[in-house]
Each structure stands twice: as C-alpha cells, then as structure tokens.
C-alpha cells in the first residue's frame, strides 16, 4: 500500500515536471529566437524568475550565478542544466528563489572564476505570459465576417496592460493578415471571402506601461467558414444602371425617329386626294359637284373617270368638215368630228376630208344642233368601210336608247359624226370584225355613242330629233380596259364595255379630249 502511494506521487511529479519541462523548453526555445541578450531571463507568472544561457558543447565547466536586488547583498543561485532535443543544445539556468517587481536586479555568471555574463534588469520588464485561452471563431451572420473571441491568460493585476494580436488566413494559404487589439478580448473580422474556410490564431503581450513582456506563443489555430455569397449588390447595381442607360438611349432614338418608324410599321394608306384637289376638302366627296367646278382645269390631266352609265365606245377616225360635202349651210352646224385615222386605207371614204375647224366652232355647232334638231333631218348615210358603221338617225331607236339610258347624261350632242361612204353603198351596216364584241341588232344599227362624262346640262335629245351618230366601232387600234370597265363587264353582262383612247385635236379643249371614252351597247 505504501509503495503504491509512493509510485502514484512519483508519477504525478514526473508528469508535472514533464509538463513544466515541456513548457520550459518551449519558452526557452522561443526566447532563444527572440531575446538578443546572451544571458536570457524571464518571469513566469508573478513569482518565478529564471535566467539561462546556452552552451554549444557541454563540458565540465563550473558556472556560478550571483544576483542582487537594489540595496541588497549579492546572493548565489543554484545552476542547473538541460539538454534541448529540439535544438540539440544544452542550456544552463538558474531559478531565483524570490521575485521583486519595481526594483533593480543585478545578475552575474562566472565560469571558472571569470565573469561570463553581467546584466542589470527589472522583473516588471521581462514577463513571459501564457497565450490566450478559449479561442472561439464563429460566423457573425453577415457575409464576409467572422466573430473572434478569447480569454486572457490568468494574470492578476495585469489585465489592463495586455494587448493582443490576431492572425487569420485562408485555410491552406500561407498569406495572412494580423490585427492588433488593445485591452479587448473580441474582434470582428471583416472583408473576408464568402464561403471560405479561415484559420485564426491569437497571442498576447503586456503593453509596457507598468509591465512589459515578450510576445506569447500563438494559440492553436481555430477554423471557421464564412457565409456563402449572394448576389453582389454592386454587380446588381451596375447591371441595373447599364440597363437604365440602354433604355434611355433606345427611347431617345425612338422618339427622334418616331415618324420614320411609324411610316415603316404603319404605312399610310395611299389616297388619290392629291389627284383630286379639293374633292374631299371643299366638295366633301361630291364628285359631280367637283367635276362641274373643275371641268376646265381638269381636262388637261390624265384622269380616268368612269360613269355609272353604260359606257359607249367611240372611235374617231378623222376630222370632217361639213362644208366639204357640199351640203347646206346647216350642215355646218352638224357636229364635226375629228376622226382618227385608222390603219386601213380610206379609199372608200368620201373625199374632201380636211382638218376640223376650231373647237369653239364645233361647240357652236353642237349648240345649234340642240336648238334645231331638224337640221339633222338630213340623214347622213354612212357607209362602213369594213369596220365602220353609219349612224342611225331613227328617232325610235333613239328613244329606245334614251329609255335605256334615260338617266344618263352623255354626250348625245357631242357624239361625233363620221361620214363614211363607199361607192354604191348607202346602207347601214355594221362592221363585223370590229364589233365582234358587241351585240348587233340587224338593220337597226342602234348605236349610240356616249361619252364617259356626265353633263348634267345635257340631256338625251328629245323625240323626233334625229341625230346622226357616228358608228362606233372598235378598230382595234387601242384598247384600254380600266378596272371599272372590267367590273362593268360583269355587271353589264351582255354588254361589252371597253374603252379606247381618244385623241383629237378638235377636242384639245373639249372635255373628253385625251380621255377614255367608254361605250356600251
């Protein structure tokens, strides 16, 4: 039993010495690096003051260590030695029996009677403190931040004199940063990388105002992870800012060219207003009224005007002068028509054709005819020459035509008279070839020419008046099928409608000069 107790005590002492020895060796190792003096001394806690020196080769030298506080006598100290495994060196040391602060201390080392080291020091300036305790690193809840906290070493009366140094680095990296703290045991690490693992160390020393010390050893590293990063607000702001600038630029471009864009996307529906000045603005779309007011100025333009009446085809072959036929002066009042030359020869035609008189004269003639219809009593027989037909002066037929076209106002007064006669023939005949598209009534030759223009002032000639109409035939010289005429074909049905371009000097000032004249049968 007694031997067991002694064994336990021995083991505890051995453990204590080992621990203390380990601590002593670490302290000595550190001071060997940090202290420049040959005779190195340090105070651990507030009671243990130790001085040591290093020897390259252990020999059997006799060392004497002497110390004295101010106003005291010199006192010897027992010298001990220890072999350091880490540095493979031997150190001699002496641990003073008492430690006095705020008093001067003189120490001396003698070797073989000769002074080896001599040093004057003060205990409050050579303190060696333990590293901080309970180092803790946690996330602060904010991106890129860590909270670090620790406890100071247990050193009474010296808590307010401590300063700390915190070192942190990314795990695996050798580059770190150091933060210094004064009399505070907490620190917030900022501007850290998000979602990264960090290592943190802390050490402490006394500030030197009342007490001065060496830096303690670093604590064991503590690892901690920062919060993962979300969307960098700076990047979000930059993206929004750039997007806003682009929108403003686009808006500026669109507003500056909005008219062009509108025309491209929604082109205006073309309207013929420019062709009919004042039709929609002055006359509110009343075409008849517009025509009546603009008859003189519009005839010079190439305007296609279509009437609702059945068009009639008129082709003027050539002009004719009434006086050339040797007729009565009344004949001069007959409508003289400028006839367009046909392709065929006109050998069968009556001679004496010449250029028609002035248009004004023709107008007068027409008026005269209106006033004196019997002037047309003389029939003028027209003989067709292959393609031309003499006009019918039968009033009955005229009435029929009038009935059919009663509501129409057409150029009955204007229709042209073309006197075509061939030798020996004085009958009415129709040209077959040219009227192939037209219905023919045998013998009647009910033909009426109709202008495509409406003259409200002109009405169908009354009964009994005989008109000599020019046979309307399609010479096939020129055809102009307008869209209206094509639709007319469907409406009219049996009636063929086609137009010929009408050219006539006499009608240079007439309404239908250079106009498309439609005729229908």
């Amino acid at each position: 039993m007694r031997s067991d107790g002694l064994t336990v005590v021995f083991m505890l002492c051995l453990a204590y010495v080992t621990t203390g020895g380990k601590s002593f060796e670490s302290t000595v190792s550190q001071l060997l690096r940090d202290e420049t003096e040959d005779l190195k001394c340090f105070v651990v806690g507030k009671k243990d003051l130790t001085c040591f020196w290093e020897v390259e080769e252990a020999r059997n030298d006799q060392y004497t260590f002497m110390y004295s506080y101010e106003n005291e006598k010199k006192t010897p100290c027992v010298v001990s030695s220890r072999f350091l495994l880490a540095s493979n060196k031997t150190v001699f040391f002496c641990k003073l029996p008492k430690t006095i602060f705020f008093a001067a201390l003189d120490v001396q080392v003698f070797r073989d009677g000769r002074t080896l080291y001599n040093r004057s020091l003060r205990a409050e300036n050579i303190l060696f403190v333990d590293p901080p305790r309970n180092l803790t690193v946690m996330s602060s809840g904010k991106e890129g931040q860590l909270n670090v906290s620790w406890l100071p070493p247990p050193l009474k009366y010296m808590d307010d004199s401590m300063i700390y140094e915190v070192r942190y680095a990314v795990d695996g990296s050798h580059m770190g940063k150091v933060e210094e703290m004064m009399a505070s045991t907490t620190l917030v690490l900022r501007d850290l990388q998000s979602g990264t693992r960090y290592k943190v160390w802390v050490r402490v020393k006394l500030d030197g105002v009342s007490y001065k010390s060496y830096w303690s050893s670093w604590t064991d590293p503590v690892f901690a992870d920062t919060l993962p990063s979300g969307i960098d607000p700076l990047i979000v702001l930059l993206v929004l800012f750039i997007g806003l600038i682009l929108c403003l630029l686009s808006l500026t471009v669109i507003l500056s060219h909005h008219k062009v864009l509108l025309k491209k996307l929604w082109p205006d529906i073309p309207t013929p207003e420019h062709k009919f000045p004042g039709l929609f603005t002055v006359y509110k779309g009343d075409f008849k009224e517009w025509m009546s007011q603009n008859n003189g100025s519009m005839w010079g333009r190439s305007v296609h005007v279509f009437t609702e009446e059945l068009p009639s085809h008129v082709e003027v072959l050539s002009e004719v002068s009434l006086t050339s036929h040797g007729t009565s002066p009344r004949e001069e009042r007959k409508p003289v028509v400028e006839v367009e030359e046909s392709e065929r020869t006109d050998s069968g035609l009556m001679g004496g054709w010449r250029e028609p008189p002035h248009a004004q004269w023709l107008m007068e003639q027409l008026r005269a005819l209106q006033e004196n219809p019997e002037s047309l009593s003389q029939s003028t027989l027209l003989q067709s020459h292959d393609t031309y037909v003499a006009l019918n002066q039968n009033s009955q037929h005229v009435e029929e035509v009038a009935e059919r076209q009663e509501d129409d106002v057409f150029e009955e007064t204007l229709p042209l008279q073309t006197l075509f006669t061939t030798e020996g023939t004085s009958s009415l005949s129709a040209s077959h070839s040219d009227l192939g598209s037209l219905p023919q009534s045998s013998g009647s030759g009910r033909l009426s020419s109709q202008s495509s223009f409406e003259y409200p002032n002109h009405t169908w000639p009354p009964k009994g008046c005989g008109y000599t109409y020019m046979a309307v035939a399609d010479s096939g010289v020129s055809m102009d099928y307008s869209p209206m005429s094509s639709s007319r074909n469907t409406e009219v049905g049996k009636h063929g409608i086609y137009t010929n371009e009408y050219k006539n000097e006499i009608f240079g000032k007439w309404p239908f000069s250079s106009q498309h004249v439609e005729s229908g049968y």
Partner: protein
Amino acid sequence: MKSYFVPQCRVDFAVWEHIDTDVSRFRGRSWRSKLSLLALSTAKKAVSNSSLASTLDNNISNIHSLGQILHSLDLQVYPDDSAPASSQMQEVSSLPELLQVRSSFLRGKVSLLLSAAPACQRQNS
C-alpha cells in the same frame, strides 16, 4: 542636490496580497503628489535649458493645482516630514535616482492601488 527620503517602490506579490490595502492606498495617495513635486523641482534645478526649465515649471504648477482640488475634497494628504525613516523609505541623493523612484512608484504601487480601488473595477455586464 541634497538627499531625500522617499518611499520604497518594490512590490513582492507574494506579500502584497496580504498587506493592508487601505493603509497602502493611503500612503500611496499621499506620496503620489509629493514625489512628483519633489522630482520636478529637483529636475528644474539641474537643467540649464531655459525651455526645458519652463516646461518643468508648468508641470509643477499643474500638480499644485491638482493637489488643492484633492485637498478641498479631503482626498489629498501630505506625508509628515517629521516622521522617522522606516524600512519602507529609502534615501535618494541624485536627480536620476529621484526620477527613477518617481517612475517606479507610479508604475507599481500607485497602479496597483488604483486597480484595486472599487471605482476602477470593470463593471461586469
């Protein structure tokens, strides 16, 4: 420079924890100003630089003013010069010794006495 008897500055922590802190605080408080005045006045006599002498005069004046304020509050007690020398006192005869004593006294005993005072304790949160 003549010799002055000034208090000892040494602190043995093995003994310090067992001494009467009130008495020590009293003695420390009483010698705090006197040592400062003593050191500054002695230093002024030793310097030849006029600007340095002027600075020392300003410091002496400030300490006198602080002493009058503390005396009005019954906090300033000057030591009795007639008291016999004790083991707690030491003799100094030079300006460097006087300045060293003043520095050690303030860093050691005065600091320890102030850190132990209730007014200087950190409030536990």
